[in-house]
């Protein structure tokens, strides 16, 4: 029995992680893992076998074909398209320092967060993951070697029985370089400063408000509320509000949204986990929905191009985002403030969730500021925003010219992958804010 298509992915992953809390090294660990995953496609069904004990490839392929045969009995008979790719090899230099040196830099960064006696607890952590990926199928072979790393800093401030938390983090593909220079120290001070200012912050007014989202929160919005709804597997499952809307105007004309795996940000990859060399994709242009994100299977079904098939470890590659962002507009931040006049400025994200079928989203900001007469006023805490994705896209009335992409991790179906998401500052004319 022969497969219609098969591929083999071998990975070797070397992780290390450190955490320093209140000057004490709390955590040091290192791991070395590898796995092989073989997929076979036959008559519309997939069979997938993975193992971390150097299996005999041919035997595993036979096993995978058997499973594919089993699943094909109930599958729709779809045809998997072929994509011609040349052999490919890339090594991205992400330099890693010696552990001792990384630790001493991290100690200095933690020190920068201790700006005040009200700061009662500080923590800095760093992790790096070096991945060597070998991909092959019946007609070509590809390889890359990439080091992703990141750090986070958190500070807890206490005063008069009140306790508040500030945190900043950064992820990239530059190895240990990410913790060098002034930037981590600036972020450490920022995290600490936020925790102290939140002690005296008030609750925001609740109800429908005119708001500005900063680049981080704007990025989370576009990733969660729009990006996920453009993943073609979600669309095909009937779970997306964007189903059947390609070519339709779904948002303000100021809105352009792209997904770009070729940008050297945290969501970068030279080829996806199905061996496809990716391209930048326009998701929304001038408010019109342009396309979805595909892996080989959804691209075959909808006759589009793949390049966003990503997997967490030995899991199955599914359509995922890479670096997803709203493109720059032409307004300065001051102009956006004037446009809002009276409202709330929401900064950072403490997490969020969406329901792609109903198009509902909910995010919590790290902090916010009251805007009065176009001027930034006092800080507000525990502020959340929620709404309907399509309504919100239509009510974006201002787009800044200061795009910034932040690294982070995205979870879907139990799989976590590194991504970048970003936006310039955005003005939404009406958004539901949760507060006191």
């Amino acid at each position, binding site marked *: 029995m022969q497969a219609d298509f098969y591929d083999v992915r071998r990975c070797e992953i070397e992780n290390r992680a450190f955490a320093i809390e209140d000057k*004490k*090294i709390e955590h040091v*660990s290192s791991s070395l893992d590898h796995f092989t995953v073989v997929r076979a496609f036959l008559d519309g069904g*997939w069979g*997938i076998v*993975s193992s971390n004990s150097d299996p005999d490839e041919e035997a595993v392929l036979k096993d995978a074909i058997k499973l594919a045969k089993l699943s094909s009995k109930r599958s729709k008979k779809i045809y998997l398209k072929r994509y011609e790719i040349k052999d490919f090899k890339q090594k991205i230099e992400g330099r890693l320092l010696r552990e001792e040196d990384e*630790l001493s830099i991290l100690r200095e960064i933690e020190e920068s967060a201790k700006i005040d006696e009200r700061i009662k607890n500080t923590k800095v952590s760093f992790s790096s993951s070096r991945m060597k990926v070998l991909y092959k199928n019946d007609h070509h072979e590809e390889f890359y070697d990439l080091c992703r790393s990141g750090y986070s800093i958190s500070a807890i401030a206490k005063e008069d029985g009140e306790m508040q938390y500030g945190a900043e983090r950064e992820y990239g593909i530059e190895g240990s370089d990410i913790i060098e220079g002034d930037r981590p120290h600036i972020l450490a001070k920022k995290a600490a400063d936020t925790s102290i200012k939140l002690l005296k912050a008030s609750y925001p007014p609740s109800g429908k408000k005119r708001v500005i989202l900063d680049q981080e929160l704007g990025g989370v919005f576009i990733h969660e509320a729009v990006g996920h709804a453009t993943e073609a597997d979600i669309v095909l499952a009937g*779970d997306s509000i964007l189903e059947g809307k390609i070519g339709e105007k779904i948002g303000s004309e100021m809105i352009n949204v792209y997904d770009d795996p070729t940008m050297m940000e945290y969501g970068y990859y030279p080829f996806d986990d199905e061996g496809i060399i990716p391209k930048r994709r326009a998701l929304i242009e001038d408010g019109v929905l342009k396309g979805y994100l595909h892996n080989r299977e959804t691209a075959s079904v909808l006759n589009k191009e793949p390049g966003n098939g990503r997997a967490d470890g030995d899991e199955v590659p599914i359509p995922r985002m890479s670096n997803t962002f709203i493109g720059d507009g032409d307004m300065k931040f001051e102009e956006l403030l004037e446009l809002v006049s009276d409202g709330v400025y929401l900064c950072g994200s403490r997490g969020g969730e*969406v329901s792609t079928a109903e198009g509902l989203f*909910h995010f919590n900001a790290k902090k916010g500021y009251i805007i009065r007469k176009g001027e930034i006023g006092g800080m507000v805490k525990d502020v959340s925003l929620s709404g309907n994705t399509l309504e919100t896209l239509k009510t974006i009335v201002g787009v800044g010219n200061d795009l910034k992409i932040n690294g982070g991790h995205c979870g879907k179906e139990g799989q976590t992958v590194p991504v970048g998401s970003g936006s310039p500052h955005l003005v939404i004319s009406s958004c539901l804010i949760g507060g006191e």
Partner: protein
Amino acid sequence: MEGVAKSSSRGFGIRVNYGGNFGFASTDDEKDLEKRIDAAKKNAKLKGRDEDWKGFVGAEEDKDKRREKVEGIYDHHIVDLNGEEMIEFVESLMEGIKSVNGTLPIGGEVSTVREQFRIINTNGIEEEEKRTMIYGSAEASFRNDCKSSICKLKNQRFLNDGMNSAYDFAISRALDIDFEEIGRNAANLAKNSSKGKKIRSGRYDLVLSPLAASELFDNIFVHAINGEEVMKGRSKFSNLGEEVGNAGLTILDDGLFKGGCGSTPFDDEGFPSGKNYILDEGILKNFIYDSYTAGKEGKKSTGNAVRADYSSFPEIDVRNLIVSHNEVGDPIEEMRDGILINSFIGAHTSNEITGDFSLEGKNAFKVERGEIKYPIKSLMVYGNFFDLLKAIVIAGRDIKMVYDIVTPSILVEDQRVI
């Protein structure tokens, strides 16, 4: 049918007691063990001496505590399942969805796990156990297409609450899951949620389904009872003996719970599992500890060192957190004017330190005089978990195991809804 997958992995997590601290490293290659032990030593050395580190769990110190067997965590029927039978389970999920008119499947999954683990240390600990697990989930959608020309003209099909989705799942360590019921539940919930109405802001009594309740316990309570967080002042809780919950509320962490997701005779450091009352009729009785944090506090481990897999470091976590209440009844019947919430969107955005949360409810229904009246289109619950603990007055009989949290639905009085 999308595919059938199987995966196998094994590996070694190594901790060494070296130079006055412990170091951790892991590998999946047995040939590599010696080198990785050196890496663990290096990691211990990098950390430097730690006066609070009292060494590994010993077999001697817990001689009085007999290692008990846990029932119901291994079922050979799960191991014996073949691919064909697994596919039949997935078909049962789909049949369950199709049995509800007008609903469509978004997806469904059935998976099984067989795991075997072994803990050995130089203090004489030598433990071994195996477990099985089966999991099934289904997600369904219901489309309430607006066919009027005005709707089409305005292109408001989706804005008009055109589609609703819902999800249900079950997890067990024995082959006792009714897959068709999972599909039917998800489909019914999606269908019943359509044509939701808005409700007025105000204070309402809430019934939280086991899933919604578990989301709050998982994201806030588990953090608050973690001995390390308490010690570092990052928990709302500090003093044992305080009344922190409703006088009828008892919360037990039980590593020996029959068939529990987190059940094993010993924890991931080899410490014997047992019952640990966290809340007894509203009174805070204990926190949860691993051996390191317990040693630092001059206490004994509570058997709460948990590893996600061999490559992760043991960390403090609940085993099976079991929520119960002296008042048991049907919480919906007891409610005069309130809201039933099936799950929350974004429970992980809650503030685990202060307990504040503002969360969108999903698949929520208005309840009047003990009866479900209509679905609610969109609502946000704005509250504080620690206040909510005091307001839990009745528990249902619909106990569900949501991974390591086991809870019935609960009736919570007087919460703020926007």
